[in-house]
């Protein structure tokens, strides 16, 4: 650390605690309280990176989130490294490692810098124009461009850090803890409003925190001392929550805001462990007060991008807050009064100020007078026409401006310096206001966009609302806050405020130089290297919309989103195009205001919490018995149960054979179950299903098909009549929630006259399906007192029963074509009953099977699975299920659509069976079906929807949808695959037991 760059009498930095860190491999030291930026500057390091296009050396320019140049890679760990981090926002901690980005092999010697000498060859949109042709070469170009651009490295391993989310509801959210935000938060909290104040810095106070200047006093004390007491008084307010190190990322409609709190980034590496690194606050505020302040603008002049050229107010913060001198011989260049505050601060800290170059003719505000009294030299009506020094500025060239400011005249004065502060005035931070949908207005007098109209309950106060002087800030903030909160707070009524007033204003967006414009390098977007020339070129090439100019020149599109220089780009466009800035408008400010880590966005939803998982009551048994699981919607379903060394194919073949040869059992608990009660329950079912329900006897079950109004199959399942006015409907696993919602929709909106109540009871019951020729014998063992004779308990009927005194419902229904039963018992006993059935079935080799075998067994019978064999474009007629459409019913959902001109076409795709010529050949699901192989282009007639090798038929079977398939039975078709063509024949979709003998076997 260069001792002579630190001043010692500093309040904010703990100079007794030394911290070591590494920058570009070199060990350096700073103090507790430093940012990486202030520590680097104290070590006399300005050069920290290279620009994107020309690889020009770039240094630290600012002290906050607007920093365009000084972005680094933090850390080197493959899972924790973070690119594109601004050094101005990194708090120094023991063990910090940072490296420069966008330079190779090193920041001091960068091969890409050769681009700088070729820069006339790299105008705006150079990459677009050059590398986009021929189009298929892009792959080649991209590799080299990306390599040389080197925009930081993404971590290659999963992030080990912990992130979380928190919802927060408050009456008032104050964004920004500067002087106006502090006063507003205090006012709100004192008036019993639940208030939250957030600020992205380590401590509250904004720039007033270190404003100790005779020209800015409140009640006869320095403004910083007055504010310090105000901040202290906040501690006693119960209604106030203060969150520092918290930056607002996004402001959405309905006062919904996202803020990112940094919790551990400032801690030493060993203290970070097992703590939440960042928390994303999801804030819903009744009222929002934006007090985000303003950003200093740079000035746009020739070679304005050298390391050592910094914002004037940042130089002030480094000296007044961090106690760091940004140079020993500092020059300042300005168009307004604020640079004089910097000059005075530097002077008071013993830093030599060469001169202030001011483009204005002359001004006599208090602060300028104070500077003059201190002996600071001022070049009035002058501009800097050039700067020198490659890796750091070493001199500037000054000339007089003409009266109209369009050119420079007279003698060129050269001034030696090691740092140049620039100030082009102030830009209110209206980003959040516009993100929230607010409209801006333009104030001509000092060229600022200000908040105008908003639909939301919010206000902007302080300098983000265009008040730049202390007395205006305080008076207007108080008035606006009181009115906005509808309170009468007189704490700030009789403040005596001294504030220097700016009396003269002058602005030149693009400062002239003695060089031709085309030869000069006036940088606008420092990170993306776009210059005033690029903007002018874009306008010459015919771009008019600012959104287009932005994208063409990439101005404002870097990671800093052009916070510093967007205004100048607009100014230059307006000037060149001859329109008013207010009419031109701004580009759209989009969230996030500052970049968010993916970790903060994702929060805890990583690993096992990536998505919700649902488990059946029998889940643990499947795990204990080594099932493989399949995700069905959010459910974890047993897929198949491999025995030792068994492949999936082998397991499924074994399970399928066992289910037909003797007995199989399936956990069907995931099926949706809806309890239907009410005097109109039967009528309701008549309206929602395609078939008739009125005559279904109590104790009987019926399969139903549900359509959308467009006639397409939506869901299916078996519904059982439990009582006169009581049914239980089952839905598909994936469709459960949607079906219930759809049925509620019809009941509430179309048929409110129906007396029907729906209650989801999906999780109330475990559903155990036992199928196969021995299923009856097994069930008799499990429920001995139940009469299972075909006469008493035929197919498609239901019985109440009990197992060890626990009641259950038993349905004799089948999705496999086998004689089978479904036991529905309350979930708490599901696993126990499953185990009981398994025990009872052991002598019959009962085989638990998973979803894959279930799919295979039903395909053998040609039963559809909605969502697999249907895709929202299949009518029941397309499925060749005409039998399920009631001809007698006047109406049901989707009925009218079944005879629209489109749905009655013969050549619609229809569900058919496919048999392969080679019975061993199993088709791929999704494979296309054609009738010719040599024709190009060939018409795709349909595709395979389900395909299996059937162990029970010992051949490959498939279901498919084929254009006009109904009339093509027996026809040969082709399934062209990558390496071969498979010959198939269209068949009936029922492959096994066409006359349903097995159901009663």
């Amino acid at each position: 650390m260069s001792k002579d760059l630190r001043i010692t009498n500093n309040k904010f930095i703990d100079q007794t605690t030394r911290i070591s860190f590494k920058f570009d491999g070199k060990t350096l030291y700073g103090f507790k309280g430093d940012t990486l930026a202030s520590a680097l500057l104290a070590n006399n390091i300005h050069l920290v990176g290279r620009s994107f296009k020309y690889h020009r050396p770039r240094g630290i320019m600012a002290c906050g989130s607007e920093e365009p140049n000084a972005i680094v890679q933090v850390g080197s760990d493959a899972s924790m490294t973070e690119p594109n981090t601004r050094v101005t926002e990194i708090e120094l901690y023991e063990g910090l490692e940072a490296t420069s980005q966008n330079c190779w092999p090193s920041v001091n010697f960068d091969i890409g810098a050769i681009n700088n000498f070729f820069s006339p060859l790299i105008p705006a949109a150079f990459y677009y124009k050059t590398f986009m042709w021929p189009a298929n070469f892009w792959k080649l170009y991209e590799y080299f461009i990306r390599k040389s651009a080197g925009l930081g490295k993404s971590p290659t391993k999963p992030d080990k850090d912990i992130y979380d989310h928190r919802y927060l509801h408050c009456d008032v959210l104050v964004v920004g803890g500067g002087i106006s935000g502090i006063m507003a938060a205090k006012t709100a909290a004192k008036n019993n409003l639940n208030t939250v104040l957030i600020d992205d810095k380590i401590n509250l106070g904004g720039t007033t925190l270190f404003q100790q200047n005779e020209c800015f006093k409140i009640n006869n004390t320095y403004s910083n001392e007055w504010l310090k007491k105000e901040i202290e008084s906040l501690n006693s307010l119960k209604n106030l929550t203060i969150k520092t190190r918290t930056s607002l990322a996004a402001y959405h409609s309905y006062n919904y805001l996202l803020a990112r709190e940094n919790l551990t980034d400032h801690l030493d590496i060993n203290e970070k462990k097992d703590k939440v690194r960042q928390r994303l606050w999801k804030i819903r505020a009744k009222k929002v007060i934006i007090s985000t302040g303003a950003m200093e603008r740079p000035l746009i002049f020739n070679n304005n991008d050298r390391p050592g050229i910094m914002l004037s107010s940042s130089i002030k913060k480094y000296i007044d807050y961090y106690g760091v001198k940004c140079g020993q011989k500092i020059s300042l260049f300005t168009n307004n009064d604020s640079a004089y505050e910097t000059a005075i601060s530097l002077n008071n800290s013993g830093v030599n100020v060469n001169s202030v170059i001011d483009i204005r003719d002359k001004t006599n505000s208090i602060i300028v007078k104070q500077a003059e009294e201190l002996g600071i030299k001022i070049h009035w009506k002058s501009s800097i026409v050039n700067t020198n020094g490659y890796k750091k500025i070493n001199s500037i060239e000054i000339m007089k401006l003409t009266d109209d400011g369009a050119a420079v005249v007279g003698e060129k004065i050269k001034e030696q310096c090691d740092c140049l502060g620039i100030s082009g005035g102030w830009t209110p931070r209206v980003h959040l206001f516009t993100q929230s949908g607010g409209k801006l207005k333009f104030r001509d007098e000092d060229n600022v966009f200000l908040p105008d109209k908003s639909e939301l309950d919010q206000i902007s106060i302080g300098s983000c609302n265009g008040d730049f002087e202390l007395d205006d800030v305080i008076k207007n903030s108080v008035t606006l806050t009181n009115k906005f909160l509808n309170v009468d707070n007189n704490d700030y009524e009789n403040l005596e405020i001294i504030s220097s007033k700016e009396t003269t204003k002058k602005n030149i967006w693009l400062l002239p130089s003695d060089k031709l414009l085309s030869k000069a390098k006036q940088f606008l977007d420092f990170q993306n290297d776009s210059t005033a020339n690029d903007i002018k070129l874009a306008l010459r090439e015919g771009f008019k919309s600012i959104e287009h100019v932005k994208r063409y020149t990439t101005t404002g599109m870097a990671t800093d989103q052009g916070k510093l220089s967007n205004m100048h780009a607009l100014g230059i466009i307006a000037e060149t195009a001859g329109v008013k800035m207010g009419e031109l408008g701004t580009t759209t400010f989009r969230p996030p205001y500052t970049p968010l880590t993916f970790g903060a966005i994702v929060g805890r939803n990583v690993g096992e919490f990536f998505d919700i998982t649902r488990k059946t009551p029998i889940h643990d048994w499947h795990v204990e018995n080594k099932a493989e699981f399949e995700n069905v919607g959010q459910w974890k379903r047993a897929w198949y149960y491999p025995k030792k060394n068994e492949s999936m194919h082998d397991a499924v073949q074994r399970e399928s054979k066992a289910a037909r040869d003797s007995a199989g059992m399936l956990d069907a608990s995931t099926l949706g179950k809806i309890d239907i009660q009410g005097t109109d329950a039967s009528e309701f079912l008549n309206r929602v299903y395609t078939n008739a329900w009125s005559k279904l006897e109590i104790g009987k079950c019926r399969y139903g098909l549900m359509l959308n109004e467009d006639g397409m199959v939506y869901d299916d399942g078996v519904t059982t009549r439990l009582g006169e006015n009581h049914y239980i409907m089952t839905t598909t696993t994936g469709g459960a929630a949607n079906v219930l919602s759809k049925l509620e929709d019809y009941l509430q909106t179309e048929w409110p006259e129906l007396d029907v109540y729906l209650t989801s009871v999906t999780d109330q019951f475990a559903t155990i399906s036992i199928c196969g020729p021995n299923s009856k014998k097994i069930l008799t063992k499990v429920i001995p007192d139940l009469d299972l004779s075909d006469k008493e308990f035929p197919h498609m009927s239901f019985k109440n029963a009990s197992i060890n005194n626990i009641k259950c419902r038993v349905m004799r229904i089948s999705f496999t074509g086998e004689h089978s039963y479904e036991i529905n018992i309350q979930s708490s006993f599901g696993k126990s009953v499953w185990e009981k059935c398994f025990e009872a079935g052991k002598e019959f080799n009962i085989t638990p099977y998973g979803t894959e075998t279930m799919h295979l067994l039903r395909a053998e019978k040609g039963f559809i699975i909605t969502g697999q064999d249907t895709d929202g474009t299949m009518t029941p007629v397309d499925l060749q299920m005409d039998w399920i459409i009631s001809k007698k019913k006047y109406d049901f959902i989707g009925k009218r659509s079944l005879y629209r001109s489109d749905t009655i076409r013969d050549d619609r795709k229809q569900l058919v069976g496919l048999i392969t010529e080679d019975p061993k050949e199993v088709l791929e699901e999704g494979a296309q079906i054609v009738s010719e192989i040599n024709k190009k282009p060939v018409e795709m007639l349909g595709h395979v929807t389900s395909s299996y090798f059937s162990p029970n038929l010992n051949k490959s079977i498939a279901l498919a949808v084929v254009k006009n398939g109904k009339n093509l039975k027996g026809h040969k078709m082709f399934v062209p695959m990558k390496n071969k063509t498979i010959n198939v024949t269209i068949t009936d979709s029922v492959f096994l037991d066409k006359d349903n003998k097995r159901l009663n076997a």
Partner: protein
Amino acid sequence: MFLINCPYCGERDQSEFTAGGEAHIVRPKQPTELSDDQWAEFLFMRKNIKGIQFERWSHAHGCRKWFNMVRDTSNDKIHAVYKMGEKPPIK
């Protein structure tokens, strides 16, 4: 993320709701009497207005009730919510 005032439960976060498209499209009582074109009008045609739009919403993760909403689609401002069967409070 909207804040929606469910007519039954009060103000809730938008994530508790699902949207159900344009409101006040009555399902024809006698669909069989309609021509293909008339049925298509009911089935497919929606206004999709930029500006004030009448919409159906359901408090899916709350009381499961459907209700209507008047929303300005140009700025997402919700002007009113009202129960099914009630007349829109504004035109």
